[in-house]
Every structure is written in structure tokens, then in C-alpha cells.
């Protein structure tokens, strides 16, 4: 699978998580021109943001919905032979940091449209203005395992005043 397609699908997964759990979520179209692996700082920061928001929901006793949320978005390994699958093999192939197989299965287009530039949050009719908050590559909480960290901060879920994207605010 090409990186841009992977990036797009991962973004959709993140948006679904946000939608399903009433988490304000703003994302931007990636302007990177080359191939990518879905691991750029912006994509990673969005994931960490969702983890923190879900942890907050858990801390205040709210339901978190994750299981099977996006199971229709990627191919299953089960089932009969995918058409066109190939493995590339050859003696002496350099593998450093890579993996023994090549992604060659095309993933069908998810039946979802990407919404960008505004908070996609049911019931939210506030027009948001201002600058998009920068992602923080060195966010110290980024390595925390989701759902296990202790939350001491009181989260006002509906307080979006002045917030366009998201902030870590520890």
C-alpha cells in the first residue's frame, strides 16, 4: 500500500475514534508530496491527543468506544487468495530496518469522506477562528500508555473557547 493511502486511512480511523467518543477533532490535509509511512509527527500527535482525550473520558466515568470501530476499513488476511498478491524475494536483499515482505495488496477505498478544517462534533455550532495549534513533537506524555495514566486535571469537555485544534495543556 502506498504511503499516502495509508496516511489517509489512518486519518479516517482517528476521525472515527473522535466522532464515536464525542472528542473535538480538527485535522488538516497532509501536504507532504512524497511517500510516507503514516508516522509523521503530525499524525502521531493526533493519535496521542486522542489517547489523552479517551483517558480523560475514562477518568470521569464516560464510556469509551473503540472495539471494532473500523474493522471494515482494512483487508482481512482470512478468506481466499487476494488477487495479485506477490512476494518479492531475492538473495542478498538489504533488510536493515525493513521487513521481509512488500506491501502489495490494494486496500479498497473506505466509503468515508474526509472533513477538514473545522471541529466535527455533533451539536457544535460554534464557528472557530484563530490559528491552528502546533503539534508538539516533544510532548512528554506521548510515551504514556493509553488508559493507564492517572489524570489529575479536570477536563471541561464543552469548553472550546479559544481552541481551534487541540492543546496538551498539562
Amino acid at each position, binding site marked *: *500500500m502506498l504511503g499516502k493511502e*495509508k496516511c489517509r*486511512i*489512518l486519518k479516517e*480511523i*482517528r476521525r*472515527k*475514534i473522535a466522532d464515536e467518543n464525542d472528542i473535538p477533532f480538527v485535522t488538516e490535509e497532509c501536504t507532504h508530496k512524497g511517500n510516507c*509511512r*503514516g*508516522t509523521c509527527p503530525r499524525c*502521531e500527535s493526533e*493519535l496521542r491527543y*486522542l*489517547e489523552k482525550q*479517551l483517558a480523560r473520558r475514562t477518568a470521569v466515568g464516560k464510556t469509551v468506544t*473503540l*472495539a*471494532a*470501530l*473500523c*474493522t471494515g*476499513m*482494512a*483487508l*482481512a*488476511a*482470512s*478468506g*481466499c*487468495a*487476494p488477487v495479485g*498478491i*506477490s*512476494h*518479492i*524475494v*531475492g*538473495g*542478498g*536483499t*538489504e*533488510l*536493515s*530496518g*525493513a*521487513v*521481509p*515482505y512488500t*506491501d*502489495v*495488496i490494494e*486496500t479498497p477505498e473506505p466509503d468515508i469522506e474526509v472533513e477538514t478544517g473545522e471541529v466535527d462534533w455533533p451539536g457544535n455550532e460554534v464557528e472557530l477562528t484563530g490559528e491552528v495549534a502546533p503539534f508538539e513533537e516533544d510532548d512528554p506524555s506521548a510515551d504514556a*500508555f*493509553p488508559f493507564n495514566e492517572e489524570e489529575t486535571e479536570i477536563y471541561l469537555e464543552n469548553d472550546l473557547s479559544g481552541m481551534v485544534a487541540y492543546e496538551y495543556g498539562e
Partner: protein
Amino acid sequence: MVSEKSSEALFPLLSIARLRMGTDGTGVTTLVAGAGCPLRCRWCINKKLLSDAPAENVSAAELLDRVKIDDLYFRTTGGGITFGGGESLLHADFIAQFRKICPSEWNIYAETSLAVPRKAVETASGCVSFFIVDCKDMNSGIYSAYTGGDAERMKANLRYLIETVGPQRILVRVPRIPEYNTEADQKRSVSELKALGIENTDVFDYIIREE
């Protein structure tokens, strides 16, 4: 006194590949490749995988710490960790330890040739969610010529696996191997697999890359 640490299995980690989709498991998976393989396949993708020595040995907790970054993707897509290699089931004890400490919602996939002792398959059957088996070829002569191994061991382990975990949790890959088998051989392999009860097969071609 034997410490608890001394009984901890370690995994000879060669590489971790995140965010794989539809290639080696359902949903979003992370491929964890380990060193060591009992077979010596002519077209092995990398001879590094055959060695037991050069990899970094990690504990189950250390591996979990490296792969948990994609927990949300795993939970929401039915994905998880795919152990590959090399021969993943050489590290069945490690996989069992990892299964115990990783989130129960994660799926554990194993890419295997089943060219391993029965004990490893028994251990894996209790902790692996889905097996992706590369059978090479079901013909003993072709199998031996290509891998240097014994097809009967693979077949016996496959029969055990079918009986133990059921065919729904097994995908068997049947490659067309240049210079070793033909499309007719592939069809014969698929027929034999179906006779054993295998429902999921993946018929594909090895493509030799020019060096």
C-alpha cells in the same frame, strides 16, 4: 535460587514495521521480525534472518513498550502484532509471554512455516489468534529441494493445528516458486490442503528481484 527473570524468554528482534494494513493480518498490524529459521530456502528474502546471533534480544515487556504506540489502531481495526521472521514459532514461549501482558483486545498473528517441533505449535495454539502458514509446496520432493526441510513435519503440524484451533484461524500461503514448482504443483497443493480441511489459501508468485 532461580530468579523469575532467568525464566523469561527473550526475542531476537531484527525489525519492527508499524502500520501495516491487510498484508499480514486483519486491520492495522505491527510486524515484529525475529532471527532464526530451521529452513534454508533458496530464495530466502534475507540470509540475516537465518542467523540466531545478530539480533537484539528483548523481553516481552520491552517489546510491548515499543509497539503499544499503536494501541488505538489495533483496538479499532481488529489488528495487533504479527510475529514473523525467520520462523516465528521458534519463539513460541516468548509469544506466549507477550500474549499474557499485552491488551487482550489485540490479535496476535504468527507467520510460520510450521517447520518446528510439535511443542512449539502446541504453545502457539494457545496464544496465537491467527496463523499464516507458508507451506512452500505440499509435494515432499519439491519441499525438500527448495527448503532442505521435511514436508512431513510441516504437514503433521498443520494437521495438529487444524484439529486444535480450527481451519478458521489458519491461512495457508501456496507460492509459485521459480525453478522449483509449477502452477500445476500449486493446484495440487491447494487440493491437498482442502482435503485436510484448510479453507483459506493464498496462491501467489515469488518474484525474483535482480541483484
